[in-house]
């Protein structure tokens, strides 16, 4: 073999040997590092505020559990986060520990076999006794009543209104008694102030928020209505559903809500971040996070003296019941059913359910800790407005869902968009929702028996019955 040929053969071999040596030597020190010898738990987290909270807690959690936490940053928008998480869970390469954005997604994830059953761990955990009954219910899957998540924080959701502007205009800021009262107040705002009075999220681009931040309030307005029947079927033929769409229809027909912004790709931006701070929208559904994220001093369009300028009403009932606040268990911690570190992952999620962890998140996110004993924590006592919301925890309302909630929410988004764009009236929207859910989930998931027909509230009757 000539020298040239030898060089051609030996050169790549030598280069490969050098690369391998560098790689190996790079690995070697870390293998000897005691930090690396600890078991590693991969934890998914997203959104800057949540990441900041987790990074802040990381050293404490690592020391407590003797593990190394590898934090993987996921996309910020909730839908993108959830899509990425679900595809990874399906592919079998998801992190050991992650959060479930909303309680109503627990059933779907658990039914798919993605979540580890935490019932024994959670029930033996002292923190479990500190959870309000509603929160305990929302952490269980409806199809087997097993616990799959550890709650940490709760969103308390109500109507937020511009107290400063309504007062200046001489419009009552009393708690509206019922839907009719709320609609009458809205009409008065429109007439006197010439602005859009009320925004309840709806439409396709708001995605699951059309249900969680919108339609859910309207359904929960009926004391006797439950979204799930005793047989765990969706009760979509109930008249409460028609009336809920009727409420939207009234808002649209009387131009009490800004429709066009709700059809935008990011429908929350204009009404919540622009119109509400400018006083072009006076009332909106929102959660305890709004005074921090949407209009707080660090937000893009802060409202001056937000704690006093913006105040809350409970959502009024449709049928003479008491006004109410809604609760959602948000970002509850779950363990990947396929995690190879089951025991450690379970210990980690229980540690993440402790009050100090919940507080670290609550402060940054504007949500309230799920546990009732948080009210005794000195750091929490300092957060006055969140304390008020936390005090509501034991009296909040929620609608339980079951497997297929994702399809139900997609159906609500479609049907409510049809109302927004005038393509459907309340009855047609109800039919559209029913048909969509039957198409996707099958007829067995929808209660087919027609429930009682309720008279429409007088406030709606004029406009809705004309159609």
């Amino acid at each position, binding site marked *: 073999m000539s020298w040239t040929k030898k060089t051609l053969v030996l050169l790549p071999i030598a280069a490969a040997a050098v690369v391998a040596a560098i790689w190996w030597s790079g690995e070697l020190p870390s293998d000897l590092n005691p930090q690396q010898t600890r078991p590693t738990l991969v934890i998914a987290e997203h959104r800057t505020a949540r990441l900041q909270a987790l990074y802040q807690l990381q050293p404490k959690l690592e020391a407590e559990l003797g593990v190394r936490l590898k934090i993987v940053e996921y996309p910020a928008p909730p839908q993108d986060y959830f899509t990425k998480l679900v*595809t990874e869970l399906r592919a079998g390469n998801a992190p050991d520990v992650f959060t479930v954005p909303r309680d109503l997604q627990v059933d*779907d994830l658990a*039914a*798919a076999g993605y979540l580890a059953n935490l019932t024994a761990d959670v029930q033996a955990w002292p923190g479990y006794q500190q959870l309000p009954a509603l929160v305990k219910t929302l952490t269980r899957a409806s199809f087997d009543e097993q616990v799959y998540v550890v709650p940490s924080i709760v969103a308390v959701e109500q109507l937020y209104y511009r107290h400063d502007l309504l007062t200046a205009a001489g419009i009552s800021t009393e708690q509206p008694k019922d839907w009719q009262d709320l609609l009458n107040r809205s009409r008065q705002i429109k007439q006197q102030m010439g602005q859009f009075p009320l925004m309840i999220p709806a439409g*396709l681009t708001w995605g699951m928020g059309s249900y969680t931040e919108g339609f859910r309030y309207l359904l929960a307005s009926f004391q006797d209505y439950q979204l799930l029947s005793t047989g765990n079927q969706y009760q979509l033929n109930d008249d409460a559903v028609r009336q809920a769409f009727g409420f939207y229809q009234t808002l649209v027909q009387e131009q009490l809500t800004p429709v*066009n912004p709700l059809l935008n790709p990011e429908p929350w931006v204009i009404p919540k971040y622009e119109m509400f701070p400018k006083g072009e929208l006076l009332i909106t559904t929102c959660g305890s996070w709004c005074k921090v994220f949407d209009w707080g001093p660090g937000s893009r369009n802060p409202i001056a003296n937000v704690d006093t300028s913006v105040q809350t009403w409970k959502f009024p009932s449709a049928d003479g019941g008491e006004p109410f606040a809604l609760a959602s268990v948000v970002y509850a911690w779950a363990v990947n059913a396929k995690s190879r570190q089951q025991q450690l992952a379970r210990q980690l999620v229980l540690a993440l359910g402790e009050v100090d962890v919940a507080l670290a998140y609550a402060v940054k996110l504007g949500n309230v800790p799920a546990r009732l004993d948080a009210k005794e924590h000195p750091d929490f006592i300092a957060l006055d407005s969140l304390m008020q919301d936390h005090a509501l925890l034991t009296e909040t309302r929620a609608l339980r869902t079951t*497997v297929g909630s994702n399809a139900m929410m997609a159906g609500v988004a479609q049907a409510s968009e049809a109302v927004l764009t005038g393509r459907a009236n309340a009855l047609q929207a109800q039919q559209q929702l029913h048909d969509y859910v039957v198409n996707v*989930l099958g007829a067995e998931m929808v209660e087919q028996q027609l429930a009682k027909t309720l008279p429409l509230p007088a406030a709606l009757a004029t406009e809705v019955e004309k159609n």
Partner: protein
Amino acid sequence: MFNMTYEARRQFGYRIMMTPALVLMAAFIVFPAFYAFSLSLTDDALLGFAAQESSYVGLRNFSRLFSDPLFWNSLKVTLIFVIGSAVIGQFVLGFASALMLQRPVKYKSIFNAIICLPNAVPEMVVGFLWISMFASGEYGTLNRLVAWFGVEPQQWLYTFPLMSIIIVNTWRGIAFAMILLTSGLASIPKDIYEAARVDGATDTQIFWRITVPMMMPTIFLYMFISTVTTFAIFGLVYTLSRGGPANSTEILGIYIYNQSFTAFQLGYGAAVAVISLVVSMVLGIIYVKALKVEV
């Protein structure tokens, strides 16, 4: 093998050389297409019980699809988008650019580079770039431009959603049209033009009687490629509008994504993908027939 004729050995050699490409095509194109079809006959999902154990549902997804107004809307939007941006926008402007740059133009290479630049930018980046252009409020680039003419700030992506995405895709695709059509123009023998001029033909006559007929194979080839690729566009429109407002820009790619990864219904999403594949194939066959190319 040693007994093979020269021709047989040559054919065998070709087949061996084609094998890697065929294996890759089978693995990444043919197999996924068949897999999508088999998936479309199930209720497979990413969530719920069906994620653990899907069942065969026959043609239920297809029957649901054909009665779904959102699917028909999506198909309509896709056709308008393809015709508006690929068939009309990119072709007309690409052809005009190709013709213009055939002439002796000063700083020709600079014009070439300017026209080619949009094609070098990834489609997601193009999407974000145009979001900034179309941004509502007085600070949006386009709103600043129209403000010089006294026009009030507009919400472009809300008021003219489909037109907006057509414009963006046209802008992005001109370069490809120009390059392909320039190569077609270059292949027309110069002596035909000279003969026509000697016979006293005007520029318009030369264009319609010589350039266009001689360019027909290239034009059809361009139409074929651009139609099929535009049909499959996703990232650009997803970045710009996510299919909204009110589904007005929900092209098939976005509809498939929404069904599969927002509603998490893999079976139904696959059924839409199969229909999309069929539509693309039909269009492809029409173009191939028009080109009179044997496949």
